[in-house]
């Protein structure tokens, strides 16, 4: 049979796409309940959207010189952000040196973006990371090349959040992998250790870990020996995230059929070769969505370090709000950092979807 030119006729799927109105009616007004819900939602949108737009843009003040002027406008006070953005973004980092903090943040973002691109997945990516991290350290601490020394208790804002999140993921991921493998180990001691660790950590909130690391840990350390506060917070984040990553990865490992292990065994591959070449690539592909979920919550959870007085993005926003001269603009401040968090989290999420699609190779038929 010759195919009909329109694609219709025998063998073609039935045409159902009618004009816009019929489709709209079928989708939104197909039953009394649907009609009611549609009307209700439309009303709600009408109430909310114009009000938001008015507050956010129309009545907003972008250039007021002081808080008094800003309050009278009746809309959002973006002048507050204009005034405070450097405090929010860079925290208590010395004002004149904040370009260093910004540059460090930009380098960090750039190297993360590079790592996401397949073209960069070569051995020398490690070199790029080493160089980038050295640069970040030099810029943030200074003390060399004529840069003044800035101790890390003064670091703050977005670069600090990025540092906590990057190192958090970079260390928690491999640690979590080892825990997941350990929990499935045939060696009882290794297995027990991993189970106890995972269950203990998952049983406590991150806040309490942060408190413990900042308040209790110094009590156990010998006199005169102290670990930096920032490092302790970083360690707490890594330990916490690793337990969750471990359980997620274990889920992926359990989804791999026994035949894959046997196939690998029969070739004479050793345990670590099997894991690296056969089991983990498949298991990790399966758990990309929940794994990315953990990374995203880790990124946001770094904001919990405010409880031990570390000056990350959220704490910096709080400090900006606390300024007596600019009282009452907390909504603007928190919206501002919410947008920043969102941009990062949404990018991670989109990237993971792209990655999943690319790794589909060979599974579709």
């Amino acid at each position, binding site marked *: 049979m010759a195919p009909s030119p329109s694609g219709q006729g025998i063998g073609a799927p039935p045409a159902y796409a009618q004009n816009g109105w019929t489709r709209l009616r079928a989708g939104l007004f197909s039953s009394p309940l649907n009609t009611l819900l549609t009307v209700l939602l439309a009303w709600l949108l009408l109430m909310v959207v114009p009000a938001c737009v008015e507050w956010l843009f129309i009545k907003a003040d972008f250039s007021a010189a002081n808080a008094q002027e800003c309050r009278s406008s009746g809309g959002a006070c973006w002048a507050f952000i204009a005034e405070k953005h450097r405090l929010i973004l860079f925290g208590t980092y010395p004002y004149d040196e904040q370009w260093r903090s910004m540059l460090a943040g930009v380098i960090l973002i750039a190297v993360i973006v590079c790592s996401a691109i397949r073209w960069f997945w070569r051995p020398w990516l490690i070199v790029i990371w080493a160089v980038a991290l050295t640069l970040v350290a030099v810029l943030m601490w200074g003390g060399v090349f004529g840069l003044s020394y800035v101790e890390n208790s003064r670091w703050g804002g977005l670069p600090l959040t990025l540092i906590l999140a990057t190192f958090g993921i970079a260390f928690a991921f491999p640690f979590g992998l080892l825990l997941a493998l350990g929990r499935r180990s045939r060696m009882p001691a290794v297995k027990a250790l991993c189970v106890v660790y995972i269950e203990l950590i998952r049983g406590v909130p991150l806040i309490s870990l942060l408190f413990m690391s900042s308040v209790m840990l110094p009590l156990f350390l010998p006199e005169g020996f102290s670990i930096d506060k920032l490092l302790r917070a970083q360690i707490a984040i890594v330990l916490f995230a690793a337990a969750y990553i471990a359980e997620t990865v274990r889920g992926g490992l359990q989804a791999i059929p026994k*035949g*894959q292990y*046997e*196939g*690998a*065994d*029969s*070739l*004479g*591959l*050793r345990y670590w*070769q099997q894991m690296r*070449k*056969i089991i983990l*690539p*498949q298991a990790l*592909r399966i758990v990309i969505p929940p794994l990315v979920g953990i990374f995203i919550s880790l990124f946001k959870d770094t904001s919990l370090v405010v409880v031990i007085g570390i000056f990350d993005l959220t704490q910096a926003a709080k400090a900006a709000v606390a300024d007596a001269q600019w009282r009452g603009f907390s909504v603007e401040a928190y919206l501002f950092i919410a947008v920043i968090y969102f941009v990062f989290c949404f990018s991670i999420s989109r990237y993971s979807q792209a990655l999943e699609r690319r790794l589909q*190779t*060979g*599974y*579709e*038929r």
Partner: protein
Amino acid sequence: MADAIIRMENVNKWFGKFHVLRDINLNVAAGERIVICGPSGSGKSTLIRCINRLEEHQTGKIIVDGVELTNDLKQIETIRRDVGMVFQHFNLFPHLTVLENLTLGPIWVLKQPRKQAEANAMNYLERVRIPEQANKFPGQLSGGQQQRVAIARSLCMSPKIMLFDEPTSALDPEMVKEVLDVMVELAEESGMTMLCVTHEMGFARKVADQVIFMDQGEIIESNTPDAFFDSPQNDRTRFFLSQILS
């Protein structure tokens, strides 16, 4: 037999309380081709899986190419390097291309250079007649093609012994022949030691030096194919043959 490449002496194995292998004694000479058959649950798969330690035997001795199978990982690795296995469900690695499936073992276990491993792999793909599929993923091939890739994957390791665990029973009927053809060719050309668990009696007649019948964990009867099929000695063997040949 002193020159046996596989020697099993009084091998016993239990799954929990279930006695899967009972006092197995088996000698396989180098180059010998053996077909193992028997009803399902008779322990035939378990028997050959003990040879490369996918299953652990509990008592008795298994000596493969002069190396005894113990808990020693080094010895297990040595034996696995010399023993190839083809599975019922292929067990190809779905995230790797056909070529990568074939070169994985040679590169990582035998430490061959990539170029050499790939040339070798292509050579074997020619032999199983699917060189054009080298860059596809296993999921894109038919069952018969996948099983031929799996055979090629084992051959790439240049094993001394090949184990086949019901290689055709997961295949659609029209694909059984293409796999059996490859196996017959392998048997006739390479002179490799082969142990094959299968119900393909035509294959057994054609290539086997010896047919072994197992039931309830025991080797009931062992004979040349002609004697085995034409004048089975044991009642259970006769019953089994009448079941599968009718």
